[in-house]
């Protein structure tokens, strides 16, 4: 859908074309323009900057006509053509191509009698063929778009009909401005409309705007003031107001207007009142709105920039060479013109040499020379390879066909394979130098799994989720947790994080471990307290820990869940017959942990109130405590025990049918995890949350207030009234850095508790660091108990803030700050976003291939860095530089410091690499010396992207192996890509899965989408869409390499072919007084390129395989040849041309000298020339080919046969046709003549000898890596492994490709050593970063606030 939107915009931009003014004016023009296009032709009466929207109902008909009559309706048409205008328009567009214009020019030129060189009709043939093929292609493409448009236009929505006095179904296309539309939850908004009613009592409605701006979180929209208070749905009949608003524009974040009631009272409208087309209603049962912009005038349509016409690097290169060809052509024509002039001046008066015009007038030599120039252009036109363009398109289609049918790209789980959405940049896949990757969903699976938590300073792990993960995909509803483990869930789930735990324990073990638990509680406690190293501790006390973790694990989750819930994760039951009934989806959130929450929180915090609460409900447990130093801990144990028991008893049947829908996957993960511990979120309504505790039964929490998440605070809070204690409790969930700062320093409960708190805090912090190192996403949870009066006071202030008009934002922030302070830490969670299968291997291979990989993520630094380690983007012994500053100056300083340091240590690190912008960075520089990684966060990135620092930043990154940008916004992502692309002149590839990657995908040379969890936006914007990251390595290393070498060789071959063939004609001019005679029959001349020699190169371009896929995968270094454009360097082009000249000379002069002075006639002379040329050209291809399949053979034989058949048939049938070249019987005559064959054989031998010798010697004298790798394909598997090893060794010794092979080999060796451990690490939590002792991190903190530059500190894990 996005695509077609883009098309619309694109089309519109073209429409606007020259008349385009500045952005401000655009919209107004646009409306009128569109109006002319589709509705009526008179311009809107309101040329002004406003549009007036009147309800589209009968009472206002006149008025409506007056104001809104000319607004476009909601029908969209993104196709370029209609049935009628297809031919003219397509022709018109095609003639925008320079090449086509050129050929049109030639065709026209040939109609000028004075310069005519061919029969008129013949010159048009190639053009017609080309135009037809392209037109068919365009037509099909457009038809596809038409079908999509139709589908969209025919989507149904509910529009108020006055006749029927209710909302009736109508197609999108019939919606007009002023219509009232009623939408239910999850419906897509058909047009921009002002929100008039929402079922939400607060007049709020949530929309998901990911289709527009890439932000996947929900946005609130507000009913127009004055309407929110209405209880009943707004009645369109009674709606008598009119809306005045801006004319359509593309600013998504702006909407200004007012609603004027009949009483002349005006109500302001803002962007929070506007529902945008393409967004989806979420969490709101139903909304009603009035359409203000429709169709192409909606912000969505205006805002989608058209697809960038991507032209591949290779094609750009080819185009410059086409220009060279043009130059060559001009020179040849000039030669012809001069030659003819001079020649004619010698024979000016010889009547048979300078045949007078029909009127007897004799042309002067000068004029004749001038005419001859044009004649020559016609004659030698083939020098510009017209068929090249068509062939390239066909070849690309073929390549795409094969890419798409590669089984390796098939993903069974999703039943999807690669989609090639862009048809013209396949060969760019083989030249990628920079890869920009999103993290979440691209490298990782974006399936959040609750992994660990820390409660009251104890660390627990949750392995059950591993199981859940496995089944995650298959089940639409994810109830497995609770279903699978009704009885033993607790224990299974909460196993220590010893590596084996996952596999060892299965569900049924539950009870057993429980038993252990009871006994060993004490031991655990002490053990935990004492041990510094979590691993050892757990190993030692595994079973007790299980118990413990289970206990406390649950609470935490529940806490979080609650919060999440509060956060409005919309919980929905999908397909649960029992529960789904009756309730609207949005509100059906069961939240059962509140009670738990209280329990656990109490345990952790030991605040008196909570204790009471817990005691009331769970007093028996308290009594059964073990000998632990602190009460809370004991309680923990107890709670766990009881929980365990409870759960062991036949579990909870109800939970099974719940399906949660959360704003973000991690929240869902928390809710699910909580459910696994029997804290089931049951329902979630705006006012309350019901959580079902196995132990306590359902508890209902009254929701008092929600402070939504924002990126400034980096936290969110809910205020609930605890059902047991009846206290007001604030729960806050947020980034650890933030929460830690907000914890209460002085607790009122006395010193011991305070101390306790401090210990917990420290431990938790340790755990958090630990989690982060493992690549887990961490969250902290804290709470605060308020008295009612405190709350009331806060609420009052907060209300003031909410209602204030000026500085509302700041006031709200302030208010939030007032609430979220003096918190008590409850615990922390670690959620894993598991790496996708095969990601580390892919990244490693891609890095070996010389591709620089940048990770751009919105995630926080620690997580990003750790994922980077996990996926082998960073190696443990890499030097890490962290750019994290608050001001531009500091950033600059820091960068120069790092740069100096880098350059000192690594002299190879190139200043010059960047100084000579545009030159490719030689991969050598990256590989020599030490590896360095650069981490930069969003804020610093902003500085670095500023113009003055760009260069330095790029220099810095050039020295680094990998760059990780964390906390980057979508816009920054695209800016980074743009910066690198434009300033380094490198080929970039951006890969991402979410809507937030769209901009980056569109900016990069190749945009790659991952069809994953986050919808289709990325896929829609991408050039290629794959289902898993690991496919990228094959796509680039194998298909990219193939496509690139194939296409570049084919293009070169085309140049060669055309030059070689056309030069035959040119040489002949020296023997016919430069009179423009062709010694070949015109049909053969034209068909030679169009038919006889067109198929083999196309097949070559599609099927050629220089190196087999296996070898390419095994030796990623081979990819570097593509990066360096080795297959098609400027030099290669000229060598090719030289060869073509040589071959044409041979091909001409062998027959020439053979027939010199004989009685051969013109066309009989041309025949062996043609035939020899055909063989030379085809055999040349055979020499260049590395693999010949039966298809090649078929095509080659077919081409030769078709040539002979045509020549024979034409020669037999054509008696008078085709003057002056009359091919009658020439071929037949020649085929009986031995000399003909001798000439052809000799010409072919002599012509091909040099190239063949070159190819032979190339293998032994200066083999390129690719050439050497080619040899591998012929070996048996054993020989192959041996050879590969040798290759690696040779590389290490610097024998062959010292720079390239070097580091990759050492790396692979390393990998071999640490094989199994690593592979495990990849699967679960990355293990390497955990033992951090030996990896050094250069962290540099620059805080502008203090205007202090701390020099780069050393060692230790990165800190935010």
């Amino acid at each position, binding site marked *: 859908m996005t695509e077609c939107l883009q098309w619309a915009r694109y089309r519109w931009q073209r429409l606007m074309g020259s008349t385009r003014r500045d952005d401000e004016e655009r919209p107004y023009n646009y409306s009128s323009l569109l109006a002319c296009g589709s509705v009526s032709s008179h311009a809107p009466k309101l040329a002004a900057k406003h549009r007036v929207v009147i309800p589209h109902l009968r009472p206002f008909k006149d008025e409506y006509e007056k104001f809104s009559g000319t607004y476009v309706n909601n029908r969209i048409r993104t196709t370029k053509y209609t049935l009628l205008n297809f031919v003219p328009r397509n022709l018109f567009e095609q003639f925008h191509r320079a090449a086509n214009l050129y050929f049109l020019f030639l065709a026209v030129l040939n109609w000028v009698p004075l310069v005519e060189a061919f029969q008129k009709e013949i010159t048009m043939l190639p053009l017609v063929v080309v135009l037809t093929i392209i037109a068919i292609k365009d037509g099909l493409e457009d038809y596809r778009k038409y079908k999509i448009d139709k*589908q969209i236009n025919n989507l149904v929505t509910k529009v108020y009909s006055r006749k029927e006095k209710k909302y009736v179904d109508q197609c999108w296309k019939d919606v007009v401005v002023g219509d009232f539309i009623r939408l239910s939850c999850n419906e897509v908004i058909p047009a921009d409309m002002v929100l008039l009613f929402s079922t939400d009592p607060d007049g709020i409605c949530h929309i998901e705007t990911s289709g527009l701006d890439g932000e996947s979180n929900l946005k609130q929209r507000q009913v127009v003031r004055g309407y929110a208070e209405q209880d009943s749905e707004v009645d369109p009949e009674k709606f008598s107001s009119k809306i005045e608003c801006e004319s359509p524009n593309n600013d998504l974040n702006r909407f200004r207007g007012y609603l004027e009631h009949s009483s002349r009272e005006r109500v302001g409208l803002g962007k929070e009142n506007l529902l945008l087309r393409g967004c989806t209603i979420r969490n709101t049962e139903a909304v009603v709105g009035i359409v203000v912009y429709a169709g192409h005038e909606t912000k969505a349509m205006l805002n989608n920039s058209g697809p960038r016409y991507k032209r591949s690097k290779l094609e750009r290169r080819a185009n410059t060479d086409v220009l060279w060809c043009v130059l060559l052509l001009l020179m040849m024509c000039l030669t012809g013109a001069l030659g003819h002039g001079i020649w004619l001046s010698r*024979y000016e008066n010889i*009547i*048979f*040499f300078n*045949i*007078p*015009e*029909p009127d007897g007038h004799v042309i002067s030599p000068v004029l004749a020379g001038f005419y001859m120039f044009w*004649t020559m252009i016609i004659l030698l036109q083939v020098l510009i390879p017209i068929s090249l363009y068509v062939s390239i398109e066909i070849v690309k289609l073929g390549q795409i066909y094969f890419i798409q*049918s*590669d089984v390796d790209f*098939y993903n*069974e789980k999703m*039943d*999807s394979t690669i989609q090639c959405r862009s048809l013209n940049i396949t060969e760019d896949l083989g030249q990628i130098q920079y890869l920009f990757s999103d993290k979440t969903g691209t490298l990782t699976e974006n399936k959040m799994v609750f992994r660990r938590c820390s409660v009251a300073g104890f660390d627990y792990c949750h392995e059950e989720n591993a199981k859940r993960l496995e089944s995650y995909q298959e089940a639409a509803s994810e109830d497995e947790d609770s279903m699978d483990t009704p009885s033993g869930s607790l224990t299974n789930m909460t196993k220590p994080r010893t590596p084996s735990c996952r596999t060892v324990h299965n569900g049924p073990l539950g009870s057993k471990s429980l038993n252990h638990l009871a006994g060993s509680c004490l031991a655990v406690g002490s053990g935990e307290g004492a041990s510094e190293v979590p691993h050892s501790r757990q190993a030692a006390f595994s079973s007790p820990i299980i118990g413990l973790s289970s206990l406390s694990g649950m609470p935490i989750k529940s806490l979080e869940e609650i919060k999440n819930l509060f956060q409005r994760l919309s919980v929905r039951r999908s397909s649960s017959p029992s529960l789904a009934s009756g309730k609207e989806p949005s509100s059906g959130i069961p939240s059962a942990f509140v009670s738990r929450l209280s329990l656990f929180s109490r345990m952790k915090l030991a605040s008196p109130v909570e204790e009471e609460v817990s005691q009331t409900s769970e007093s028996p447990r308290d009594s059964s405590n073990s000998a632990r130093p602190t009460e809370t801990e004991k309680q923990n144990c107890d709670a766990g025990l009881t929980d365990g028991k409870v759960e062991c008893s036949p579990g909870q049947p109800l939970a099974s049918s719940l399906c949660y829908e959360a704003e973000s996957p991690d929240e869902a993960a928390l809710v699910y995890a909580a459910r696994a511990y029997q804290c089931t979120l049951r329902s979630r309504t705006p006012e309350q949350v019901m959580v079902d505790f196995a132990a306590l039964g359902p508890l209902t929490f009254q929701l008092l207030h929600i402070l939504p998440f924002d990126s400034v605070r980096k936290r969110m809070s809910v205020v609930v009234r605890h059902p047991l204690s009846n206290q007001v409790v604030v729960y806050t969930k947020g980034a650890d850095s933030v929460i830690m700062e907000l914890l209460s320093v002085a607790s009122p409960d006395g010193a011991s508790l305070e101390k306790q708190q401090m210990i917990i805090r420290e431990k938790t912090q340790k755990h958090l660091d630990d989690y982060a190192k493992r690549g887990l996403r961490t969250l902290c949870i804290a709470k605060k108990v308020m008295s009612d009066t405190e709350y009331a006071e806060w609420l009052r202030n907060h209300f003031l803030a909410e209602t204030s008009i000026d500085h509302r934002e700041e006031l709200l922030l302030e208010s939030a700050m007032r609430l979220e302070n003096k918190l008590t830490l409850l615990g922390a969670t670690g959620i894993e976003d598991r790496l996708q299968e095969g990601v580390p291997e892919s990244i490693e291979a891609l890095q070996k291939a010389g591709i620089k990989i940048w990770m751009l993520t919105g995630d926080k630094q620690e997580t990003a860095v750790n994922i980077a380690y996990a996926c082998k983007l960073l190696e443990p012994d890499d030097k890490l530089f962290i750019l994290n500053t608050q001001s531009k100056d500091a950033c600059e300083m820091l960068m120069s410091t790092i740069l100096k340091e880098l350059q000192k240590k690594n002299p190879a690190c190139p200043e010059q690499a960047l100084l000579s912008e545009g030159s490719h960075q030689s991969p050598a520089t990256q590989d020599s010396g030490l590896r360095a990684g650069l981490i930069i966060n969003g804020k610093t990135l902003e500085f670095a992207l500023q113009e003055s620092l760009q260069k330095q930043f790029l220099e810095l990154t050039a020295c680094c192996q990998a760059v990780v940008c964390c906390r980057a916004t979508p816009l920054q992502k695209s800016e980074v890509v743009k910066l690198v692309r434009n300033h380094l002149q490198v080929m970039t590839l951006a890969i991402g899965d979410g809507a937030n990657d769209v901009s980056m995908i569109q900016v990069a040379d190749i945009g790659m989408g991952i069809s994953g969890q986050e919808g289709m936006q990325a896929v829609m914007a991408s050039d290629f869409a794959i289902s898993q990251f690991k496919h990228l390595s094959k796509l680039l290393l194998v298909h990219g390499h*193939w496509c690139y070498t194939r296409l570049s060789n084919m293009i070169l071959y085309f140049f060669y072919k055309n030059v070689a063939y056309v030069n035959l004609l040119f040489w002949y001019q020296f*023997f*016919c*007084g430069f*009179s423009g*005679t062709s*010694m070949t029959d015109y049909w053969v001349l034209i068909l030679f390129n169009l038919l006889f020699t067109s198929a083999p190169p196309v097949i070559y371009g599609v099927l050629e395989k220089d190196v087999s*896929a296996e070898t390419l995968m095994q030796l990623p270094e081979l990819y570097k040849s593509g990066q360096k454009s080795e297959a098609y360097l400027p030099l290669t082009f000229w060598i090719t041309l030289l060869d073509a000249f040589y071959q044409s000379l041979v091909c001409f002069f062998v027959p*020439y*000298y053979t027939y*010199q*002075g*004989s*009685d*051969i*006639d*013109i066309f009989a002379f*041309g025949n062996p020339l043609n035939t020899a040329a055909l063989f030379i050209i085809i055999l040349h291809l055979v020499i260049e080919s590395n*693999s*010949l*399949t039966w*298809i090649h053979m078929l095509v080659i034989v077919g081409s030769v046969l078709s040539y002979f058949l045509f020549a024979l048939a034409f020669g037999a049938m054509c*008696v*008078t046709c085709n*003057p*002056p070249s009359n091919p*009658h*019987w020439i071929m037949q005559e020649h085929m009986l003549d031995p*000399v003909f064959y001798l000439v052809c054989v*000799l010409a072919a*031998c*002599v012509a091909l*000898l040099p190239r063949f*010798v070159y*190819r*032979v*010697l190339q*293998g*032994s*004298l200066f083999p390129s890596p690719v050439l050497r790798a080619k040899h591998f394909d012929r070996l048996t598997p054993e020989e192959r492994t*041996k*050879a590969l090893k*040798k290759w690696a060794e*040779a590389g290490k010794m610097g024998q062959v490709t010292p720079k390239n092979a070097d580091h990759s080999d050492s790396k692979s060796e390393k990998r071999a050593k640490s094989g199994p451990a690593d592979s495990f690490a990849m699967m679960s939590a990355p293990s390497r970063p955990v033992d951090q002792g030996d990896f050094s991190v250069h962290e540099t903190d620059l805080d502008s606030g203090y205007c202090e530059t701390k020099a780069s500190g050393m060692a230790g894990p990165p800190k935010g």
Partner: protein
Amino acid sequence: MTKMKKTSQICQSKLPDNTALKQQQLPAYRLQLSATGVLSGFFATGAFCLGVGIILILSAKSIKEIEIKYTKICANCAELREDAINFDKECTCSIPFYLSETMQGNVYLYYKLYGFYQNLYRYILSRSNSQLVGTDLKDVGNCAPFSKSHNGTPIAPCGAIANSIFNDTIILSYNLNSSIHMEVPMLRSGITWWTDKYVKFRNPSAINLSSAFTGTAKPPYWSKPVYELDLEDTENNGFLNDDFIVWMRTAAFPTFKKLYRRLNRVQYFIEGLPAGNYSFNITYNFPVTRFKGEKSVVLSTLTWSGGSSLFLGLAYTVTGAVTWLAAFSMMAIHLMLKEKRTLFIERFETERDRA
């Protein structure tokens, strides 16, 4: 989006076919550039070329050919023809020569023109195939300015080519001894391509030729109309005249010869042309000095390999030699490399194989 998902579920699996073709796993022949293969290939090619070259040279050597340029010999005639005014003045010229060796077998008489461009674009265009094939005498479309005579009647045959026909008459006489001069019998037929004579050129159908060509004019430079080209042989008259047909097949290069007559092997000439004294009696009509050209007569025999050109044979021989040279040098390189890289013997095996 949801719709898309649904459809994807409905359709069968998108798993691509796992065929050799689609997976690009087709068995492929790879050019094996192994040392032995390449070298033996080169040697074989070289040997072949040398062999063919030698055969060709030998066969070309066996050809007897005599060429006599007569522009200078008949300088006075040439001078006369320089001026178009003298077109009706006849000028003959006799060129005696001595044939030292018998020319065995079929002997062909050619005329050869130097520097006459029969391959100019506008020149070769200036003909009417449909007229020549006898279907439409009035079709003179491309022939301008030689399409119509002054009074508007179409010229047959029209166009520059026909108009510029080579119109010398060459008669070879054999001087058996000083007194007996006999004309060597020559055939004026069978010197064209069969298809030219029987397909491409047809006379318009009529009772007799002259009536067939009524309503047409003779080309301005011709002395007689087309139907009087050969009054003795009706099969050789009109458009079917062999000399005319031969001329109409425009030569590829500015220097060319065209078959004029072939020896009628009767009487003395049954074996060919015996050695002895001969003379050409030439009626000099065709002007060449104006374009600084030359004319010559050629007597030649033919072999399977065509004319007397040594080029092809030499070229083959040289190519063969060069190929061998290349092969030897490659062998040298190969051996050198092999020695140099003993360190990595195995790896170089791979190299060597390729070399």
